[in-house]
């Protein structure tokens, strides 16, 4: 199943990755070549074969619904790019996407 340039641009948008025109062409070839090797799987009969999503897990165990403090020696401010009053600061959203302003 060959990947098209449009596919690459579409999945790049889904993955929030900017891809310029030259790199999009390269990735189209690279991903198509890689996926060609995956075609062998379509020849395997997997009718009624259960899916393996993880090894050895009997489902996610639950812990008591009790609030616990995060085990951190530092503060969020020590590694977050931008914080104020305990909140992460992000650029403006949605209807303001085209605004040249950034920051809250």
């Amino acid at each position, binding site marked *: 199943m060959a990947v098209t340039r449009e596919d690459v641009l579409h999945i790049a948008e*889904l993955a929030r990755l900017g891809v310029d025109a030259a790199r999009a062409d390269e990735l189209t070839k*690279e991903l198509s070549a890689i996926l060609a090797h995956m075609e062998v*799987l379509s020849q*395997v009969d997997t009718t009624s074969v259960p899916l*393996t999503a993880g090894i050895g*897990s009997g489902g996610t165990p639950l812990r008591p619904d009790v609030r616990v403090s995060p085990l951190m020696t530092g503060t969020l401010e020590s590694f977050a*790019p931008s914080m104020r009053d305990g909140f992460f600061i992000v*650029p403006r959203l949605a209807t303001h996407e085209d605004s040249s302003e950034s920051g809250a």
Partner: protein
Amino acid sequence: MSVENFTKLGASAIASSVRAGQVSPADMIRASFQRAGEIGAGRDELNIVLYADEKASIKEADEMQARVNSAVDLGVLAGVPVAIKDNIASLGLPTTCASRILEGYVSPFEATAVTRLRANGALVVAKTNMDEFAMGSSTENSAYGPTRNPYDVRCVAGGSSGGSAAAVAAGITPIALGSETGGSVRQPAAFCGVVGVKPTYGRVSRYGLVAFASSLDQIGVIGRSVDDAALGLEAIAGFDKMDSTSSDADVPIYRLAALGKPAPEARDPDTEAIRIGRSPVPLPPPPSSTTLAGVVIGKPKEYFPDSLDASIKALCERALDGFRSMGATIRDISLPRTPLAIPVYYILAPAEASSNLARFDGVRYGLRVDPGKGLKAMYEATRSAGFGREVTRRILLGTYVLSAGYYDAYYKKAQAVRTLIADDFRSVFASGVNAIFTPTTPTPAFPVGAISDPYEMYLNDIFTVTANLAGVPAISVPIGRMKRLPVGGQIITAHFDEYTMFRVAYALEASLGSGAHE
């Protein structure tokens, strides 16, 4: 024990000498940093170490010295310098996954595996280079450049734990932590002539390991010898409430596997005394015709194709002859779905990675690039500037196989075939085979820059990736040299049977002696 012998000492010998007060922990730290300097472990040379702080390490060692003469147990790794792969969170040194997107990030918490090493007396001296976010087989995908192989600086050290394997091979530390998703401990261990172990999925807590592909990721141990690897794994294995996928199965004393006998009761008081370092491990007898009596070792035909290099095949046959001479039975077996493993892995791992790496968005950690055009533009600019080419490629591949219209054909199909691959192993072990022996890699280390095609690079994992997909434990042990470069042999056992894996590995190492490095 003499500090001059540091580069050849095993972790047990170092810890015994420190506990006995014959050498100080600070002596060991200085010896480690001196060796790193001599060998050129920094970024401009072999590029093994990304981050280190000699003053802080010596301060930590001096604090330990104050406890040497007290009644406090210093632990089985007392004063042993250890190196940690840069995707495992550690306090005090950065954790950047060798990526620009995490440049400067210092974790506010520590991985359970690192905490347990420290609790056993180990001293962290370095964070090691790796393929960015553990995506690669050569450490060439590091944002900070490739790690060079200490045996031949023109060649790669393997990957993705190339820095950890090279640190041990170069004599900087006797033990290092790496991580595996498709062979990233065993393959560099084989390329660098050291021992690398991937435990059963669930044996070691992944808390603090930066997630790549969560159904496959495992922390593993690299050691100068089988004993170092066994000791390191003992120290970090076991249930951890911080990782819901960790198992509460008892952890045997893996070092007792050197005695060539079945595992003793894990909670026996004598065994517990050995576990904490109060009693020494009995001296193992030399290998004999009964060392592996009753052990059946499978030789899978899919791992010995006609195309396999004759030198590697010959070294494997020598190892198999050694097993026979120690009383093991060698049985020809088949793991028929092996050729499907690379396609399955390179669908599942990128799919999981595309989800796990969504968290690196310029909001909570590390890098932010904000062109001033809103949130979405900030996400794109940050991720495009922060991720390297291979990580970008895999995120896109993963996003593609998970997207509408392709999910069933790729992702669900791969999950089903993964079941069949795991069934192959279940069938073989259910038939009475105790361990499987294979080459670790199809070739020895290759020159830096020699492989540019992504899929050709992926094929480096062909003999290692099946154990990750099935979740079984596996170890790579040096079995000889090919044109001066090390070659590794791989031993795979059933889920949670690391003890048998170590038993066979100890026997292999003992039977080869210096031949493992010739």
